């Protein structure tokens, strides 16, 4: 016990809550309050209303919600397939090769999202890839940004997987593909699910690259939220933000449920 006396312990906890609650709790509370505020001309909001949240569903923000969901799901699935494939392939390489290729796959983490968007804008506005102004370019941007996370998350899972499962499976006559689908991937399920959740959450909140490449017909939630707050509709923006958070949280909770069930031991 670092602090043996009760007084000092209570002091430490007090310090913690003085720091933690205003810094992390207050922002979320205040955005939540704004989403149901009719007016906010004093310390506390007044004329509480569900209008903003309601509007979010019926107005074009509803479309943005669906757009974000679609983008998040598609980008996560694609990123998971590429990332898992890459992680499995890299594991089969010799050390030096694995290191080089592995670095190539995680490098997008280090590139600013705005630059990723700019690159896609410049490169895909000319043959052979004419994608500027399509939804595809938004999807590609999201895939680029989350694949690196899927790759490193699955790679970490693979590294933790003891080699003897696959070896015993092979000794029992399991061919490589059979072992992959019957042993390796089932054992990797917790990592895969966690990676999927992470990818989805990141994609849902992505702003930097999307704002560079989005076409008028494919506006994601964060872009929509920015447009709203930029023209002063802050309460509507807050309502959409709350929706975004709730959606993300629901997916994360679902993921952690599946994850506990998938980790048998």
């Amino acid at each position, binding site marked *: *016990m*670092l*602090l043996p006396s009760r007084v000092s*312990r209570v002091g*430490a*906890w007090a310090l*913690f809550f003085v*720091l933690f609650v205003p*810094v*992390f709790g*207050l*922002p979320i509370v*205040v*955005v939540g*309050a*704004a989403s149901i505020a009719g007016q*906010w*001309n004093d*310390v506390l909001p007044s004329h509480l209303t569900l209008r903003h949240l309601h509007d979010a569903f019926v107005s074009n923000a509803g479309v943005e919600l669906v757009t974000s969901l679609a983008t998040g799901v598609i980008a996560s699935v694609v990123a998971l397939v*590429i990332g898992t*494939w*890459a992680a499995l*392939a890299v594991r*089969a*390489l010799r050390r030096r*090769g694995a290191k080089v290729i592995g670095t190539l*796959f*995680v490098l997008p*983490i*280090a*590139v*600013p999202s*705005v*630059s*990723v968007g*700019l*690159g*896609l*804008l410049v*490169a*895909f506005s000319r043959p052979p890839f004419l994608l500027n102004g399509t939804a595809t370019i938004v999807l*590609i941007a999201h895939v680029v940004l989350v694949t690196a*996370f899927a790759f*490193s*998350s699955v790679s970490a899972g693979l590294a933790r997987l003891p080699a003897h499962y696959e070896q015993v499976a092979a000794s029992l006559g399991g061919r490589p593909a059979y072992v992959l689908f019957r042993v390796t991937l089932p054992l990797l399920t917790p990592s895969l699910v966690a990676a999927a959740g992470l990818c989805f959450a990141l994609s849902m*909140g*992505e702003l*930097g690259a999307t*704002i*560079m490449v989005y076409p008028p017909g494919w506006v994601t939630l964060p872009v929509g*939220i*920015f447009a709203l*707050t930029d023209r002063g509709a*802050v309460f509507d923006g*807050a309502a959409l*933000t709350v929706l975004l*958070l709730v959606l*993300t*949280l629901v997916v*994360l909770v679902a993921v952690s449920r599946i994850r506990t069930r998938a980790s048998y031991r």
Partner: protein
Amino acid sequence: MARTGWVWVVVPLTVLVVIFYYPLFFILRQSFTGEGGHVGLAPYAEMLSSSLFRGALLRTIQIASLSTLGCLVLGFVLALIVSFVPFPGARVVSGFIGTFLAFPSFLIALAFTFLYGSAGVFNFIAMDLSGATQPPIDFVYTKWGVILAEITFYTPFVMRPLLAAFSQLDTALIEVASSLGARPLRIIREVILPEAVPALLAGGSLCLLLTLNEFGIVLFIGAKGVITLPMVIYGKAIQEFDYTAGCVVAVVNIALSVGLYALYRFLISRTGGGRAVAVQG
């Protein structure tokens, strides 16, 4: 085995090259393509000497380093309490920190405008107390607002590796140290801090990398005087359609952050902070 292994890399690598490295190459190419299609260093000469760029570079580095410093201090204190002065609900706090990482950064910027903005809660409080007619709090629209928002958002990125490192610290070390008569501050300095160094280095450099590239917070706060490199890229390419200028800034920004990322990986491999990798979700 290893020779046939390369066959399987080809498919994902091709996808990656097309969607990431190919665009990266075009950023580089565009950055050297001046007006009228002239290839040369002229775009760089022009951009690097502009006061817009210099100011943005300086401000970006300043904001990133101050934010990182703040994250390290706040993260260390909070992680210390959660780990070593445990209280009921400490697990909830850890879980909360985990989910905080998955939220978009602009959430904090939005909240800051409600809290500290000119029509924000604290300004109303201040005006009620002092009787002033003008909102007295205006730091949100300065670099300090951005820095505070970034500290709020990125502190969990420092806390995660720290909590992981602290959970592996043998509590017997602390018990032995206190049985030998060391006071808490001495234990923190001489037992806990050395163990936390790898996690602090890893978390700190990750933080620096992310704050260097932060876009959502700066965009949402929308302070006129606070222009960072990603904002310049956005402004040049999207608002002025000057792709070349945007690409020049992007090249500088990418070089900066890839360099930092290399440092981060180096620190992790060097200090064995790999167990506490924050990037790996």
